[in-house]
């Protein structure tokens, strides 16, 4: 039985549609189009049909997946599609996924007749990556522009290797005319599935059926499902989409339960509440939090150092885990053994954060795990509880009536700030004794920068002065991590290389090792050839080498939300002393812009006081995510802000007889 959660935009159209799926290997001359091919893409999928059935043997259930895929090559550069490969998995006990059958066809239309070349299973090459993964490869012969190629194969997967069918993508980087997926599920098995993306089904049906699981058993009742999407356009690539796969139209599956004498019993259940409960029961998640006796001595020593202040105990525990255990760079949801993590002094994200929660609980501080999906992993679906969507865990603590998030993998964020990779809108809190709930991961901190400059222009095109760069919130992270990794001299030298127009005479860096404070870079700078002369005039860019220069939004259309991850704020306050003998001829007009729904503001003004100009600019985009409906306004906001920053101040040489 399949439990489906569909997005609300879906409409099931007619119950059956004409399927363009043809028999394997059969191509006739009329399958080749008369009209010249559209070469704006190098290939297209004519149809892609997948089917999953279930069988059993002595070891239990197996999935049998067959696929028949036909493509047309439109340009010479598309012939690479004639190289097929598939990665199969094994377990350490040497139970494997196997490729049972394989056929490949290349059809070419030559003088009105179809010429076909065929390759079979014997022609498949094996590339053993390591003992867990093997890749099967096959090259089709005679592939060229105009060819129609086909692959038909069958893979058998024992449940011991994997019990979730691979996700089925209805959409790819090239257009797909017809994508169809069938699934016949016997009554013993219950799957959750999730359909994502913006495309609609052309076919969505189910009907009762029977299946023969094995020769020894009588036929079992089942339900046969069929889904299809027609004319899926090539998936577009857009900036500020952290996980493109999240938006591709696809079906994902997760086993909910198995009943029956030959199956391994698993019960994840269907609702988030039940998934919370399962996580708490898993030995690699909740189980780890029940085995914290080894942390008692450590807790006692922290308690003795800070007998009164709970916040101080919290900070001490956090700092201890953060500085003692080294993160190995891997995201994870669970841990094998947090005691070993402490002994080895290194671990992945779950090792470290579950250890932290264990320690805080030993200190009687209210701490709960929050599970989430990192930005590159795609946003978790609140409507459907899918374990495979979760890949990370952090801690949420409440102390002195304040609630904050803690992640001890990152030495460069302040307590309460999650690392950028975790900022993926929503997570799930799983307390020990109360029901779980969704929590917002929207950051309080911003990506915030203030630049204050005081410069003097000489008459020869140079500006000399001081630039103070204050970076707080997430803006401080790259500076902190760069300084602590490379050391100050190397960091400054890399900074200089990235700013060819600057000559850094002196740079002081403050607070690089205090994540709670604002990082300050204090530069004494000489910018040579910073403004241009034309006869009597000087053209000066008000923010010198800084400011906005390129619009990140070049396209006029947008399909997906714009996900910056965190709100941002950039402020400039420059004072520029003009060279003697020049007067101001033109100053850019002030400009104020706002975005709807408190989405942002831009304020810019230049004022003059005797021989100095004061330039103030504020750009604020407080929302981490903007819906696609606001794209055009966001784009235009940037267009105007960039144009304003680019507008030059024009100075003119004063006539000698004129007094200022």
């Amino acid at each position, binding site marked *: 039985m399949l439990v489906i959660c569909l997005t609300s935009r879906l409409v099931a159209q007619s119950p059956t549609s004409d399927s363009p799926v043809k028999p394997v290997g059969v191509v006739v001359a009329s399958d080749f189009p008369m009209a010249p091919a559209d070469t*704006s*893409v*190098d290939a297209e999928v004519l149809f892609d049909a997948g089917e999953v059935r279930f069988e059993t043997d002595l070891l239990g259930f197996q999935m049998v997946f067959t696929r028949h895929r036909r493509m047309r090559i439109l*340009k*010479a*550069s598309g*012939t690479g599609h*004639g*190289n097929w490969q598939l990665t199969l998995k094994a377990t350490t006990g040497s139970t494997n996924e196997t490729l049972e059958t394989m056929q490949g066809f290349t059809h070419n239309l030559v003088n009105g007749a179809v010429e076909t070349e065929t390759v079979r299973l014997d022609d498949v*090459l094996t*590339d*053993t*990556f*390591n*003992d867990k993964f093997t*890749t099967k*490869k096959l*090259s089709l*012969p*005679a*592939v*060229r*522009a105009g060819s129609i190629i086909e692959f038909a194969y069958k893979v058998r997967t024992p449940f011991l290797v994997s019990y979730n069918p691979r996700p089925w993508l209805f959409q790819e980087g090239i257009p797909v005319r017809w994508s169809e997926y069938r699934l016949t599920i016997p009554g013993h098995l219950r799957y959750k599935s999730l359909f994502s993306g913006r495309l609609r089904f052309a076919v969505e049906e189910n009907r009762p059926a029977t299946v023969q699981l094995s020769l020894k058993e009588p036929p079992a009742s089942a339900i046969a499902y069929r889904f299809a999407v027609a004319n899926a356009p*090539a998936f*577009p*690539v857009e900036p500020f989409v952290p996980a493109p796969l999240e938006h591709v139209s696809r079906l994902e599956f997760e086993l909910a339960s198995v009943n029956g004498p030959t199956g391994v019993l698993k019960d994840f259940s269907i609702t988030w509440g039940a998934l919370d409960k399962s996580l708490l029961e898993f030995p690699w998640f909740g189980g780890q939090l029940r085995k914290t006796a080894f942390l008692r001595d450590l807790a006692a020593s922290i308690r003795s150092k800070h007998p009164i202040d709970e916040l101080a105990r919290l900070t001490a525990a956090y700092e201890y885990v953060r500085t003692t*255990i*080294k993160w*190995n760079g891997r995201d994870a949801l669970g841990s094998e053994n947090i005691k070993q993590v402490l002994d*080895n002094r*290194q671990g992945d994200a779950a090792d470290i954060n579950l250890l932290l929660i264990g320690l805080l609980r030993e200190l009687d501080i209210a701490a709960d795990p929050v599970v989430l999906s990192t930005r590159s992993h795609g946003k978790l679906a609140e409507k459907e509880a899918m374990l495979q969507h979760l890949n990370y865990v952090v801690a949420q603590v409440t102390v002195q009536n304040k609630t904050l998030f803690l992640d001890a993998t990152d030495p460069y964020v302040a307590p309460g700030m999650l690392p950028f990779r975790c900022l993926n809108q929503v997570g799930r809190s799983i307390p020990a004794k109360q029901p779980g709930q969704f929590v917002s991961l929207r950051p309080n901190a911003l990506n915030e920068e203030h630049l204050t400059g005081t410069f003097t222009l000489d008459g020869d*095109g140079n500006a000399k002065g001081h630039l103070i760069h204050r970076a707080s919130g997430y803006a401080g992270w790259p500076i902190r991590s760069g300084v602590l*990794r490379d050391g100050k001299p190397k960091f400054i*030298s890399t900074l*200089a*290389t990235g700013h*060819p127009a600057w*000559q850094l005479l002196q740079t002081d860096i403050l607070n690089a090792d205090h994540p709670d404070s604002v990082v300050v870079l204090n530069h004494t700078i000489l910018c*040579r*050839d910073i403004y*241009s002369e*034309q*006869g009597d005039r000087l*053209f000066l860019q008000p923010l010198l080498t800084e400011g906005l*220069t*390129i*619009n990140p939004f*070049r*396209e*006029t259309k947008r399909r997906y939300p714009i996900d910056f991850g965190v709100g941002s704020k950039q402020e400039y306050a420059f004072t520029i002393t003009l060279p003697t003998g020049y007067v101001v*001829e*033109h100053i*850019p007009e002030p400009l104020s812009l706002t975005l709807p729904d408190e989405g942002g503001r831009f304020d810019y003004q230049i004022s003059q006081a005797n021989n100095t100009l004061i330039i103030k600019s504020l750009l604020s985009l407080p929302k981490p995510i903007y819906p696609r409906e606001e794209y055009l306004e966001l784009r235009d906001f940037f*267009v*105007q802000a960039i*144009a304003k920053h*680019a*507008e*030059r101040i*024009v100075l003119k040489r004063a006539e000698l007889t004129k007094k200022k």
Partner: protein
Amino acid sequence: MRKYLLLLLSFPALAQDEYRAAAIPESLRANAHAVVRRHETAFVVKSPGEATQRVRTVVTVLDAQGDDEARLIVGYDKLSKINDIWGALYDASGNQLKKLKKADIDDQSATDDGSFLTDRRLKHASFPRQPNYPYTVEFVYEATERNLMFYPTWVPQSKENRSVEQASLTITMPKGQALRYKAFNLNKPVERQDEANQTVYVWTLTNQPAIELESMAPPARELVPILYTAPTAFEVQDYTGTITNWKELGRFYHVLNRDRDALPAELKTQIVQLTAGEATAMGKIRKVYEFVQQNTRYVSVQLGIGGWQTIAAEKVAATKYGDCKALTNYTKALLNVVGIPAVEALVRAGDDEADILTDFPSFQFNHVILCVPNKGDTLYLECTSQTNPLGYNGTFTGNRHVLLVTPDGGRLTQTPHYSPADNRQMRRIDVILTEQGDATAQAVNRYTGIQSETRTGLLNNRSQAEQRTWLLEQVRIPNFELKKFSFSEQKTQIPVVTETLTLAVRKWATPSGSRLFVPLNLMSTLGPATPATSPRQQPLDLDANWNWQDTDTVSYQLPQGYRPEAPISPMTLTSAFGDYTAGAQMVGDRLVYTRRVTIRRGRHTATAYAEWVDFRKKIAKFDKVQLVLVKGEVATK
């Protein structure tokens, strides 16, 4: 074991010192993430067809960026075998913490993105990431090698930010088998010991500080200690050869690959018919080349000696795919059918590869192309490309030496060199400017030679949506809309690609009262060069990719009633690196801005780098030129 003792005696310091971090001299810590304490290679040639190699490395990792050095990666294939791997981990004081276990060694396929399938594999051994620095790792491996076309290249300092304390290479040759070698940047000569039935060569290196490659530095082999070695007599599978010179090396390749050019009779007839209408040899060559391009594709399968021996032309005829050797051999066979002689040319291909060492005959090649002498009008054909113009080599195989594989033996020649006049960017842009500062621009841009390669790649291999995304990134105008674009190419021997753009630009010029301030250089700015933050050590190398010329003509239709207030003085620069001129004048009622930059390849001293930075800065400044337009008045000057 005797070899190991030999090495120990050369370095009388205490064995434990090589594990102790404190024993590292200060000069080796500067700029280093890791220090190679010991790097000992012993290569023993048993016969022309078999050798053993033993390598011992001891590396102290100083900080987190050196963690990658704390592992061993050794490649092997069907003709070699890794017999043993041993490893150990030590703390800062040199105490052994643990030994490498079998479980810490992974065996993986080494098939890379360029190949569909190879039999290359690798063993990967590492220790878990350590919480404290510094720490030291030691690895020893022994391997047997049965493909002796290649002898070791010794590069103890093969990475930036890695210093070397002591390194040695020992090569033992049986009497009667000569060793060839060529050294760069080694300050100690080889020590040679002639014994009864063998000769032992020893090279050593001590206290080499870490280096960092500066921007536009020469190839690494000119900067670090490196020793190339090569056999004279060798055997691999059932083939034997000698290479004391290029002639013999070419002869070996010829023998390995000959007589694999039989073609099916129908194909021969087809080719004769296809070229029957061509009166000239050039016409026939073109027809054959286009046939190969349209009917085959590149798939790389490299197995065993198959890595150097082509599959039969008949197989390519049947499957219609092959790798560079197979497709070159196939094309040669087809040309032979119509009476056009051709020979294979071995080349080291790649847009960032240095030329081969012409005075050191050895297998330095990674690719094969086809040389068609064509009675002096020589062409070098790239047989793996379905889109390349006939005879264009470009950045992939141009500007370098190749080895022709004639039946008499190998002979060095050179592929075409491309001059700045071959590698041009010519932009012709017509702009309509409004009083408010907005503009519409129609650009017809032509790119030739090396400058055409990015765009022909885009045109042939990318969808329209991808081309559009690329253009949007490429055009560095702050606020523009790409209304229309198209690409077309001319597949001449120096290729030309034409790009047509229609742009709408907002707020390009700044209005101010009755004036309008217009930046003149719409699309072609050349930014400043990377400044040197400390005195430059390495020479400045402008390689073959730096021979180019850009010419821009931007013609502005001015808003009604506006005229330039004053003329722009011409801007010129000349230097050892190239020239720049730019200027603007009224032509009829249009303002025409012209700009020309020519850069020439060349090698310059380290001190000349400051001049390069200055030259680029001056160009960047000139590129920001602004013209003042004024309404109503006629220019008074």
